[in-house]
């Protein structure tokens, strides 16, 4: 179907379902309808997840065929197929599937977390090279104060930081900033949702 013909239909369907869900939230007695539509959405999202997996497979199959660092793509495809088939056979709680998760995926992701800790320490140390502004200085000063207040460092505890500065930052400054940011994010989310609801923003290619 031509894209120009398809877009208004997609927009009409998206806007209609958006308004139906909003209406079922406001008018009592339509919970079943809302749950049914949301179940369809969950089902579609699950299908999209499979399509994402298919996309991952195709990208690495293409790399393997074109010999672009084929060893990594081969390992990924072999691992993906083996895990998929084993989980399909045993279920996600099966012995082999659990072993794969606990002994391969968890250690690999934990290693990445460790790399992240080092990367962030270096990034924080270099922040003033990137941006020499008040906010960066405030960020570094707060980080340093929180580090000192987090507990005894090398067996030395500084009561001024652990009992006064640390709790003050956590309970007042940090909590206030957190709420301010959350208000901004909530308003942004609300405005984005409304733009999609009225069809002014069409993330489905419109």
């Amino acid at each position, binding site marked *: 179907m031509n894209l120009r013909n398809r877009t208004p239909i997609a927009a009409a369907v998206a806007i209609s379902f958006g308004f139906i869900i909003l209406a079922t939230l406001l008018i009592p007695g339509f919970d079943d309808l809302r749950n049914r539509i949301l179940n369809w959405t969950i089902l579609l999202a699950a299908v999209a997840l499979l399509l994402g997996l298919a996309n991952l497979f*195709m990208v690495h199959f293409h790399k393997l065929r074109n010999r672009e660092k084929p060893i990594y793509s081969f390992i990924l495809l072999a691992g993906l197929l083996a895990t998929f088939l084993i989980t399909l056979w045993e279920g996600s709680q099966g012995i082999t599937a659990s072993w794969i998760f606990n002994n391969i995926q968890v250690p690999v992701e934990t290693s990445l977390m460790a790399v992240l800790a080092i990367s962030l320490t270096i990034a924080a140390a270099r922040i003033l090279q*990137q941006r020499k502004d008040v906010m960066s200085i405030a960020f570094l000063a707060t980080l340093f104060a929180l580090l000192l207040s987090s507990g005894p460092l090398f067996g030395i505890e500084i009561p001024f930081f652990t009992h006064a500065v640390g709790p003050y930052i956590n309970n007042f400054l940090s909590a206030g900033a957190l709420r301010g940011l959350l208000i901004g994010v909530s*308003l942004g989310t609300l405005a984005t949702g409304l733009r999609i609801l009225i069809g002014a923003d069409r*993330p489905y290619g419109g």
Partner: protein
Amino acid sequence: MNLSALQWIVLCLVFIGFFSFWGRKNPRRALRSIPAFQQLRRTIELSVEDGSRMQISLGRGGILGPESAAAFAGLTLLRQVTEIAADSDQPPLVTTGDGAIMLLAQDTLRHSYNKLGISDQYTLRLAQTTGLTPFSYIAGTLPMILDRHVSASALGGSFGAEAGLLTTAAQSTAGFTLGGSENLGGQAIIFASADQPLIGEELFATGAYMEAGATHQASLRAQDVLRWVIILLLIISSVLPLFTSLP
């Protein structure tokens, strides 16, 4: 949902409608300056000129939770970047950690390529799902930044602490990094490690600053007004008990 939530929705809709009408009459009314977007525009133009590639990460948020709004803001960024850089030698690459957002990214790219009249250059591999868990998504995206002569990376979507690996990788290639997330932990990490962080609601202002349309500008102004309304309500609710407790 209670009545107050409905009131906020209606209030926001009214303001969007008002500013859409008012903005048409006052098109020159400027938005406050956000350096991240100015630098992003310059970087896109430079990457087109020098034939290098941009990489856009849409994060791991899906379409079902509250993180979907961040992913939609990322899709707006994608559309605007693509319309500038799609016909360069190295078109932008998109990565996501969710199948549904990948489909929407492919649709956005296809539409932008059609609009530019270069639909023959579009391939499905321009938007990829690189992993379905936070760290596998990052592990799949890192080689794209390190191996493909990426000169700029833009992160727009739902990211947690793992975003730090992407931003530091992009900086190791001396590339420009811009990032925004709806997740507060992710925002802190991006603030520390990206060249240009988008803090708080700035991610949701992407459309207004990247000239995605009048409604984006109107909704940004509506957000600004509503924020002032909330600030006033907070001050009033804090001060009022002082007066009511007086004899």
